[in-house]
């Protein structure tokens, strides 16, 4: 496949992801707010899964700064298995989500796109 076609395809993939990234972060925040007000295991699992998913995808799609914060946020969840542990970690989790949002604000689409293209065209491994 010619290089320009590859770049076109990668760019389309990137924008498809990027258009939904803010929504993914807001979804995490919404789940946290819901859980903060009233604990339930299902919402906790959904929140953990949403954070884990963002951890996996953000780095792949060039959003390194977001990924660094999400990795830290997910680590806070590793030891939580119930309401009491969640309550103890609540403030830390809120802070972690805030940092993820800040890293989203501080990342330009152009910067992330360049990271993504570099990684996928062997310019940088």
């Amino acid at each position: 496949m010619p290089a320009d076609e590859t770049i076109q395809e990668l760019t389309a993939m990137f924008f498809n992801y990027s258009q939904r990234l803010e929504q993914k972060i807001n979804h995490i925040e919404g789940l946290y707010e819901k859980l903060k007000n009233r604990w339930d295991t299902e919402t906790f699992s959904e929140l953990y899964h949403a954070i884990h998913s963002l951890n996996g995808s953000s780095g792949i799609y060039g959003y390194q700064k977001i990924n660094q914060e999400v990795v830290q946020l997910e680590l806070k969840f590793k030891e939580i298995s119930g309401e009491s542990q969640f309550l103890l970690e609540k403030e830390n989790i809120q802070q972690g989500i805030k940092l993820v949002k800040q890293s989203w604000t501080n990342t330009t689409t152009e910067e992330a796109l360049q990271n993504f293209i570099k990684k996928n065209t062997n310019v940088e491994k």
Partner: protein
Amino acid sequence: MPNHELNKILLVEDEEDIRTIAKFSLEKRGHLNVKFCSSGYEALDVVESFAPDLIVLDVMMPGMDGIETFKALKEKSAVKDIPIVFMTAKTQTKEITYYKELGAINVITKPFNSSILADQLREIWQTYLTQQEQTS
């Protein structure tokens, strides 16, 4: 025992964004024959007919997670010998050790480098074949 180059992969991943980049990486760049499944249930349905050389299994999936899917695959006599690689977001060393003790032949961490994912899997496959030859 298989003795050929890696060709067919069954990749089980619930995240569409990850499947999209993996498809580009493994099919277009890596020239591998890949069947994508979005859940463990779907993987169990198709694994026998597709007969992959290797299964790549996401750990955290809603419903049947990667560990449950792994155990269910190992209980199916027709496919229990197909090697499985776990794929998971950046994780702790003790978890990787646990996945290997469970029987996974290796673990790939996300975010993976999509430009070398096919090469990584080919290397894992070759190491697996060599180990199989040494123990047979």
